[in-house]
């Protein structure tokens, strides 16, 4: 029996954002935008979705008089990511389950 994949993570842009945030302690919105090749609007929507389910934390502040958005993954986000990867491995290697 295959485990159901987390619908929040099983989306290209959200998965890319979480994969980036799992690799670093925290990242600016501009860094995520640059690395995911996404538009600011789309990225903003997906970040809000991840924030709503508490997979990431978002801090808004000012840096040199410019607004700055910093994102970091939460413990819940790390757990969800690990569960997602394990489920993917189950799909890839069904006999190993």
């Amino acid at each position: 029996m295959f485990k159901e994949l987390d619908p929040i993570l099983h989306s290209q842009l959200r998965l890319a954002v979480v994969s980036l945030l799992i690799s670093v302690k925290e990242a600016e919105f501009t860094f995520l935008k640059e690395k995911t090749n996404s538009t600011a609007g789309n990225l903003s929507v997906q970040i809000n979705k991840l924030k709503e389910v508490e997979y990431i934390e978002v801090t808004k502040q000012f840096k040199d008089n410019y607004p700055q958005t910093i994102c970091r993954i939460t413990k819940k986000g790390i757990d969800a990511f690990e569960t997602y990867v394990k489920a993917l491995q189950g799909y890839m290697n069904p006999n190993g389950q």
Partner: protein
Amino acid sequence: MQEEKFSPQESLHLISETISKAKASYHDTGIGPILWGCVVTICGLVSFYASMYKISWLYSVWFLTIIAIVPQILISIKERKQRKFVSHNDVATSAIWTTFGFSMMVLSIIENIMRAKYDLGMHSAVYMLVYGIPTIITGSICNIKSMVVGGILCWIFAIASTFFPYPFPLLFMAASAVVAWLIPGLMVNAKYRKQKAANV
């Protein structure tokens, strides 16, 4: 990036590709190691000269290590401002080098208290031993082989210096700073410049 559902294979590929992208984004400038490599090398060589020619006031060259904290703070602030993300390596190395800085201060205090009782060459060996610890850890974490080699050489120099009378251990100290920080710093900086030029 399109917002559509995709296969497990594509998911795994996306995860590994994105994590590789994040790793590739990390570029250390190497300015800090260059600064400290120069400062400690100069201090070691000048104090060797001071000891050989009995010029006591020249020993105050070690105050350079306190003065160098100012440009180090400015460099750190500048690099922090330019940084778009904070890596786990940044957090670990920052903690390691802050601890190292305080260890150096404690060691200097101990050295000044015990100066009359113990051989000065012994102190140089202890300094080199301590230089090696954060250097090897940083080299291992950040995958900078030259730093690992430099740190190991610090320990070898620490042992070797005990076979020579004072002030010759100071020359080993200067050599430690060259191999542990100056050379790796220059190599990291050259790599940084190359990557920066490639991204322009």
